[in-house]
């Protein structure tokens, strides 16, 4: 396939940086009905999935646990020295690459949930992500995601505007019956409308699935987007995370913009040379931190009504492996940020890091079910009933009660 030199350059230069970072944004194609009612809250929810398994013990370090420094060894954080980790309380320290999150935490607009995990107890990334995103208790159910089913339970208002085109694929968390839109920065001259309409007509007769896909792709491509929505050349995963967050925030700040969205960032699988205060993971966390700051500034007045949930499929081994990294584990952290978060606290039933306390003698033991956190946010922030949450959003999860009071 031939493109002229200019476009080829821009494609190679701009798209690659984003794709390599694996960043994608997708959102519900409708406003919740309560979004526009006079005097009502206008809540916004963003779920950020970190694919590859985030090292929770490196992100929010239990420096007060006597066993932590020994286990995390060469990559352990501490509250003194160069790149000191700021203390969140008397026990936990935040990774120094996340100053924006730390500031939000101190303003009580961000919280940490520690020793948290989904219900999945094996160690496959792909099954783990399926469980995290599908909301089912086990792997193998990939028809729809919990955020899509949550959206289906909301009263549907008007369709959102869109300067959106779904990234190469919609993440599982938002896949399902409720229509979604998405966006990824790309520069490519678009085909003429007339050609697209003729193709739609052909698909209508011959290929309804492609008609639906193209129809959505066209619809969300209509609205011209500003300069900061265009892909920029160069950059790494870090800048790509910021960039996609900036674009997402711009879309979500608009009066008719999407209210509920998901992003996925790849690259957290730090098996070797993970780095401690600086290094590979620090770079990624800095990108995530930047993305949170972009949400805050881009959403402006709406930040007040926003909750951002950051979650990953599972954690990593408590003890570093033979190559200054960590292998697949279990318990990890989830982060909450946003003006609607009742923050300034680390929510944890700390299991301890003695060998006997570790899950299978190797991982941070999970003491909080991530579904409790997600249910609590959906209940308090979007008003979903406990029953819907237990039956359809997270099927067969009645025994996992929503964690109340995270939002308000």
């Amino acid at each position: 396939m031939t493109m002229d030199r200019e476009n080829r350059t821009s494609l190679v230069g701009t798209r690659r940086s984003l794709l390599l970072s694996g960043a994608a944004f997708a959102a519900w194609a409708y406003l919740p009905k309560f979004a526009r009612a006079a005097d009502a809250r206008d809540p916004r929810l963003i779920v950020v999935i970190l694919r590859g398994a985030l090292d929770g013990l490196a992100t929010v370090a239990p420096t007060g646990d006597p066993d932590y420094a020994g286990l995390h060894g060469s990559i352990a954080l501490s509250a003194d020295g160069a790149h000191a980790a700021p203390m969140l309380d008397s026990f936990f320290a935040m990774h120094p690459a996340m100053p924006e999150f730390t500031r939000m935490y101190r303003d009580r607009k961000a919280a940490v949930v520690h020793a948290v995990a989904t219900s999945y107890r094996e160690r496959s990334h792909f099954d783990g992500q399926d469980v995290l995103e599908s909301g089912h208790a086990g792997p193998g159910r990939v028809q729809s995601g919990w955020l899509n089913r949550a959206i289906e339970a909301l009263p549907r208002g008007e369709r959102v505007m869109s300067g959106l085109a779904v990234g190469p694929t919609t993440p599982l968390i938002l896949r399902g019956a409720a229509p979604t839109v998405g966006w990824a920065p790309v520069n490519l001259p678009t085909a003429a409308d007339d050609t697209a309409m003729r193709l739609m007509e052909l698909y209508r007769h011959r290929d309804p699935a492609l008609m639906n896909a193209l129809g959505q792709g066209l619809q969300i491509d209509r609205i011209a987007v500003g300069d900061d929505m265009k892909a920029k050349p160069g950059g790494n995963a870090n800048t790509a995370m910021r960039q996609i967050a900036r674009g997402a925030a711009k879309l979500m700040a608009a009066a008719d913009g999407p209210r509920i969205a998901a992003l996925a960032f790849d690259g957290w699988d730090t098996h070797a040379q993970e780095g401690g205060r600086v290094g590979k993971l620090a770079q990624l966390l800095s990108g995530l931190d930047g993305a949170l700051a972009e949400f805050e500034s881009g959403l402006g007045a709406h930040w007040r009504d926003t909750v951002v949930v950051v979650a990953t499929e599972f954690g990593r081994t408590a003890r570093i492996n033979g190559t200054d990294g960590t292998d697949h584990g279990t318990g990890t952290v989830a982060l909450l940020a946003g003006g609607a978060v009742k923050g300034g606290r680390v929510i944890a039933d700390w299991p301890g890091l003695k060998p006997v306390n570790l899950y299978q003698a190797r991982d941070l033991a999970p003491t909080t079910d991530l579904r409790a956190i997600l249910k609590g946010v959906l209940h308090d922030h979007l008003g979903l009933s406990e029953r819907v949450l237990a039956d359809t959003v997270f099927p067969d999860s009645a025994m996992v009660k929503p964690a109340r009071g995270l939002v308000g």
Partner: protein
Amino acid sequence: LPAILPIPAGIESPFEEWSMARDPQAALVALNRFGFGARGGASGDLVNAASDPRGYVRAELMRPNGALLELPGLQPTPELGRAMFAYQDEVKAAREAAAKVAAMPPASDAMKPAEPMAMGQTTTTAQSDAPKPPPAPPNVVQTTFRNEALARIQRATITEGGFVERLVTFWSNHFCISASKGEPARIWAGSFEREAIRPHVLGRFADMLTAVEQHPAMLFFLDNQQSIGPDSRAGQNRKRGLNENLAREIMELHTLGVGGGYTQADVTTLAAIITGWTFVGRQGRLGPPGSFAFNGNAHQPGPQTLLGKSYDDTGVAQGEAALAELARHPSTAKFIARKFAAHFVADTPPQALVAKLEATFRSSDGDLRKLSMALLDADEAWQAPLGKMRTPYDYLIATNRLLGRIPDNPGAVLGGLNTLGQPLWTPAGPNGFADSNAAWAAPEGIKLRLDMAAQVSAKIADSIDARDLLEVMAGDAASIETRQTIARAETRQQALALLLMSPEFQRR
């Protein structure tokens, strides 16, 4: 909008020869499901495939060494490794020289440090009115990647039907590495496929498995060169230990499949068994730099029990024996059979087909030529509707084939793959690219395909009649609606874009 009207009988097939085709629908299966689609011009692919669809595809499997890719200029992995080490040494030397210059008292204000200074040091940023240096020529890592990519793209574009090349892409994705891991992965991405995948796509699964897991590219991609037996001499001296990344993916992704009956303890055990599997570094202590080596000093000593079977410590042979067992494990046959059928036939493949493939895999001890034959022999593989989306790679290759364009530069295809979310040899994780319609028929993906089809057509359609190309591509298998949509397009450019986006071209 033009309404779709039935076309009067008699004008569907203006070319006499096409109506001689015996089975146009099966020809489309032969060319699109099993290959990269018909080549344009006077190739006669559609006619040939229609006269004997099964025989047309089977013939490819009978060509000796048909999967090998050996061209002047494509170098073996160790030579590429040496070139990379030399390049890295040059970069290092240049950086050190620049740092030395920068550290000296400024002799000239036009001097500028090439690299940021060490932490805590402030740099005096020199005025840089001096003209910018010309952009550095592409380094050996980049040029190798592009040369390898070009060789692969050209082969896929010119090959007759493409079944063997499709097998290469299937197995290469099954045993994927990702060039984004670092320079070794990027420079070896092509040689990995040429050396570990191609020789075995019509050979034995067990041989491919061993070749893959001992290839420097895979050892680097999944960190095994760093994994050290805790009780080995190196482990004792250097206080280093296991990294279980490769061991886990061998069982989860390469052989048994998740749920294939292994435990965390098996993962750790396999990691111990393959400690010492590494590649030779720049000093060449263990052999030619950039080649596979077994480092006994890093190997965890002692017997190991994997999946209930005991393996004596026979050095490198301990791991080879374990891989051989994994290759013939029933879970592997099941996992591979289903994945193979899902790739070629349907996201949810007919159970009878999967059962046939699984039985063949088991009874032949993983003979991959027989596995491919079993696929071609099965009626299910020919009767299932053409419902799979072409991947972006298939789409771009099929386009070049139909348009008769053999690229002499990989840039356009590589750029297109990036745009469509399938960057060559660069999947996001060790599970490779998705192989489902959910992945490739997503709204933005389809919209981008249309934009690219329109862009290509705008450039070249002046000399092309899409109606003729439709006959070359699908002939009597084309639907009336597609035929009419193309015939009624208002420009040649529009007609070609619509042809490239038609279900007959997008589905396989």
